[in-house]
Each structure stands twice: as C-alpha cells, then as structure tokens.
C-alpha cells in the first residue's frame, strides 16, 4: 500500500509549527541557501569549469523535477531556455495564482510554510542570476499575501534577501504582487501582462516565450509554488537521491488535492506514480471511499480543465515488461498510476494534481454546466472563438439544465468545442473545450436523453415558446 510521503508538507502540518522565521530556522531553514551560496567552481573533465549557478541548474535538470502548476514540463529544461546572453536582467516569478478549480495545495504552503517557498525562490534566483523576483498571489488570498509580506520582511532582516545576501555579495529582492480575481492570470504570459499593470491578455508564442521575452520584454522564469519548494529539497538531497523518489520520468513527490464526493477529501502528498487513482479515492489514509451505497461515476483527474475519466474505462498503458521490452497493458481507471505520463496515455493530464470525484448521484449535465459557466466567466475576451464559444457552450448547457434541452445539443456542444481548441492565443481555448468534448463524448447518452426528454415535454423538437426565461446563465 502506498503511504503519504511528506517532503514539502513535512513541517506545515506538524503540531506547533508556525509560519515565522524563527520556527523555520529551528527546523533547519535556510541551510540549503547557505550551502548553495557556498558552492565553489567545479573542475570538470577536459579542463572545463562549472560555476555554482550552473551546478544548481544541472542538479534541478538531473532531478527530473517537472512543473507542478499544470503542464508538467521539466523545470530544468525550462530554466535552460532562458536567454542568458541578451545582456538584459533576468526575472523570476512565482506563480501563486492557484485558481484551477479543484486545486488547493499551494494555499497550504503559502499560509503555513512561507519560508520554504522563499528559500526555494532565493536559491532559484541565485542559480539563474536573478536579482528581482515577484510572487504573484491570487487576490482571494489576502491573509496569504500578509503572511508572505511578513516572511519576506523577516528574511530581509536576517540578511537572506537584499543587496548583499549573508555577506556573499549576491543580490536578490522579492516582492508580493496580488492578483484580483482573474483565472487567466494563472497563464504565464497573462500573469506577466498583469504584473506589468495591464489586463491579463495572454501573449502570442512565438515570439513572446517568457524565457526570452517575458516581464518588461526581458528573459523571465515563471514557476509554480510547489515547484520552487522542490528546488530546496533537490539541493538538500542531491539530484540522484531526489530522483529515487517517485517513478522514472515522474520523480519526487506531489501534493494531490482530492475533492468532490469522497469521504475524506483533502490534500495528500505522495511519491509521484506510487499511488493509483483507485488507492487515492478508496484507501482509508486518502479519500476513504465513497458515501454509503454510492458507486463511482467519473473523475476529473487534474483540475477542471483536464478531460474527464469515466468509471470502468480501460486504457492502454505502455509499460516496461520483465524482459525490458515495452508491452501494452490494459489498465482500469482505478489501477491507473497517478503520474504525468500514465494520465497522458489515458488521454488526459494530471495537470495541477487535483482530482474531483463524482459518484452516481451527480447529474453529469449539471456538472458540465457548472464548469462551462466558470470558463465563460473567466475567458479574457481576447480571441473570438474562446470569448464567444465559451459563452455559447455555457448558454446551451444552462438551457439544458433548465428544462429546455434539445436532442441535437450534444452535437452542437461538440461542434463549438472543436472550433475553439487550437484556435486561440493561449491554452484557455483547450481548457474550456476539453471538459465539454470529454463529458459529451463519454456521456453522450445522458446529454441526448436529457434533450429528448425536454423535447417530448414541450411537444416536439425546436425551442419552446418560454425558452427566453432560461436563456442565459448569470454573467
């Protein structure tokens, strides 16, 4: 049986642990920063030399750390894309805009163990020659912003931040920047626009890859809260030891946010890929199963933007067999290891590590209507397919959940969603299309039955006379 493995949350939830710097220092805080700053130039073979900064970047790359924000991209590779020859300053931004529905892991770190994040950030800044960094925290975390500001003040007073960190001559300053309720700020180029004091309209890539043209058109690194915390532990353990945690290509630990209709919702830190979806839902130390008499209907595996997985589905997973050859194994949803690669093979993604569980009491059309209303509200409005399409989908679903469905609505929804994905500047297009595509395709009978029942009630196909009553959702 897999166990919880608390690396990031080791201190946060222990009794008596407080977010102040004295407590953090008593628990070995800022030792990895001191160690990083004390690194010497390393002599490599063939007379080559490696600077302390290069050594840290190398460790992060070798550790296999993948971004915990949603895309699951290699953090070390992301850092390697940074344009270091432009002569421009390099910036680092911590993405603390946690707003993917279902996700509540960064909240724990920000509120309970802010110095862990700050230490991870200062090490990351040092490794990338960053002198100015920001923590972009969502506006709905006012207490979190205060806790971070206090923690930064303490770190400054102790000499961990400033123009001359611990007398080493290294310079780094971090400030807190608050968002104001817009989901799109979680998209890194939207976040950068927002940090520049503008509407959070994502930038088109190319050319605006943050690693080259980010904040103030300078090279910029944007990493998630949890990702930056891992940097500290990679420095502590060494890349080799760290990479032993988890499974190959899915290293380390990850905090899983489990919500919806399970007995014990909550956040659980596990080694990546060591627990299956079934274990996370049913094991007493994690979700502890469903309510009495209920059966599993479906799960959303990686935040609301990921494609839904239906109970009973089988996926073809490629695994290394005993003889080292790759074999394809039919795997049930419940036996799917919860890691980046397995979920990708199942046609979805582990995204922000957030599982939303739905049992047989859930009306799947209602659930999709709820999510579509979210996306219609949060579309930034920049690209027509997304701005219009997200609202059309939400309106159709609102109509369907208010007794005015039509049999052809299922195909209507699929048609809109297919015309949004791939036709927008940022991934929000996919984020709003994927739930619709996957819900409707996998539960088409539910959508068509609802439409048919409404049509029968209103005496035939076509919109009914009183349809305008329920014509629009609330926005």
């Amino acid at each position: 049986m897999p166990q919880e493995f608390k690396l990031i949350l080791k201190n946060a939830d222990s009794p008596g642990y407080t977010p102040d710097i004295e407590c953090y220092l008593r628990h070995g805080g800022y030792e990895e920063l001191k160690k990083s700053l004390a690194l010497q130039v390393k002599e490599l073979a063939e007379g080559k030399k490696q600077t302390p900064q290069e050594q840290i970047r190398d460790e992060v790359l070798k550790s296999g750390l993948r971004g915990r924000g949603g895309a699951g991209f290699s953090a070390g590779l992301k850092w390697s894309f940074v344009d270091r020859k432009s002569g421009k300053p390099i910036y680092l931004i911590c993405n603390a805009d946690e707003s993917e529905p279902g996700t509540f892991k960064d909240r724990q770190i920000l509120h309970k163990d802010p110095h862990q994040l700050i230490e991870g950030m200062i090490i990351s800044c040092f490794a990338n020659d960053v002198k100015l960094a920001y923590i972009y925290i969502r506006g709905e975390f006012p207490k979190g912003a205060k806790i971070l500001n206090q923690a930064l003040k303490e770190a400054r007073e102790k000499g961990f931040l400033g123009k001359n960190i611990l007398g080493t001559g290294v310079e780094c300053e971090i400030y807190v920047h608050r968002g104001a309720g817009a989901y799109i700020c979680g998209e890194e180029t939207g976040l950068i626009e927002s940090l520049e004091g503008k509407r959070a309209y994502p930038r088109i890539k190319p050319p605006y890859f943050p690693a080259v043209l980010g904040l103030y058109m300078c090279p910029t690194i944007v990493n998630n809260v949890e990702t930056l915390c891992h940097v500290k532990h990679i420095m502590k353990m060494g890349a080799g030891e760290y990479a032993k945690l988890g499974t190959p290509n899915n290293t380390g630990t990850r905090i899983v946010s489990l919500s919806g209709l399970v007995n014990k919702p909550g956040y659980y830190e596990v080694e990546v890929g060591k627990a299956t979806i079934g274990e996370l839902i049913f094991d007493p130390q994690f979700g502890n199963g469903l309510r009495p008499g209920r059966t599993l209907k479906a799960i959303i595996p990686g935040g609301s933007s990921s494609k839904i997985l239906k109970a009973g589905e089988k996926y073809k997973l490629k695994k290394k067999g005993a003889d080292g050859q790759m074999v394809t194994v039919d795997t049930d949803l419940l036996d799917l290891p919860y890691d980046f690669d397995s979920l990708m093979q199942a046609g979805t993604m582990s995204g922000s590590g957030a599982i939303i569980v739905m049992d047989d009491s859930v009306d799947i059309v209602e659930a999709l209507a709820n999510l579509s209303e979210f996306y219609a509200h949060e579309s930034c409005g920049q690209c027509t397919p997304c701005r219009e399409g997200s609202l059309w989908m939400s309106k159709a679903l609102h109509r369907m959940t208010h007794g005015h469905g039509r049999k052809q609505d299922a195909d209507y929804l699929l048609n809109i969603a297919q015309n949004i994905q791939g036709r927008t500047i940022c991934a929000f297009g996919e984020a709003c299309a994927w739930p619709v595509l996957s819900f409707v395709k996998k539960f088409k009978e539910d959508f068509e039955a609802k439409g048919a029942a409404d049509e029968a009630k209103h005496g035939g196909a076509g919109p009914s006379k009183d349809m305008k009553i329920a014509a629009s959702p609330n926005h």
Partner: protein
Amino acid sequence: MSFTVTASFEAEIDELISHYPVNKRSASLMLLHAVQEQYGYISKEAIEWIASKLGLQPINVYELVTFYPMFRQEQPGKYVLKVCRTLSCALGGSHKLHHHLCDKFGMDPHKHGLQTSKDGKFSVEFVECLASCGTAPVMMCNEDFHEGVSHEKAEEILKKCS
C-alpha cells in the same frame, strides 16, 4: 469631487510603487487594492488619482477595474460574503448556501454580481473557485476564510458580524 488621501496612506502607496523599480505602471493592481481596502470601492476620482500617481491615463486604470472581478465601483456592505460557485463547492452544497443567504437578505439568487442588503450591512456575491475544494462549501467574510460552511455555521458567522 476631489479625492483626498492622508499622508500615511500616500506613504503606503509610495512604498508599494517602490516595489516596481523598472516600471511603476506595474503597481496599478496593488494601488487599486490599497484604495479599495481603504475606501471600500474604487471611485472615478480614485481612478484619476491612481493614474496621476503612476503617470498613466485614467483609461489605463479604469480598464483594470472593469477587467478584474475583485474591483468594485460601488460601496459594498460592511461585510462582504463571497460564496464559492464552482464544481467541488457546488457538489458540497454551496448553491444552497448562496440561496439561503440571498433569501435571508431579500436578494435575487439568480442575479449576477454583488448584492447588498437594504441596511447596508451585508453584501453577498457568488464567486469562482476559492481554492479550498477539499473543505466545501467555502465562504469568505471580508478577509476571513471559512470552511465547511453549513447553514448553521453561516448563521454563527453572521452573528459575529456586528
């Protein structure tokens, strides 16, 4: 009507601006937050004042107020209740909670945006995911965050609002 600020508030604003040595336009959101916290909402005059502080046109600030959902252009109630609308909280009963609060204060639960009770004490708003899906349904009362808010718990929270 002009917008006047105290010296201490202006010092707070200047401190915030200093966090953005590269381009002070970046301070826009932080200044809007500071003004809203101090005055309850963002008036036209406040927008002009922020714009002049940052060397911007008022439209550069106004377009932020209309884009970011947290900024308000009207005075809210003394206590602003934000109930999470999104899926996990919905599965946990947040729509019933929102309905309950709206009924209590004579508000229309289907109306979009912030609504304020007649006595000006409470505002209720249905908001998107507040990132605490494991303790649904959740609600914020001003800056305070509340988890697992049953109708009874909501009543207790309201009682403490004086």
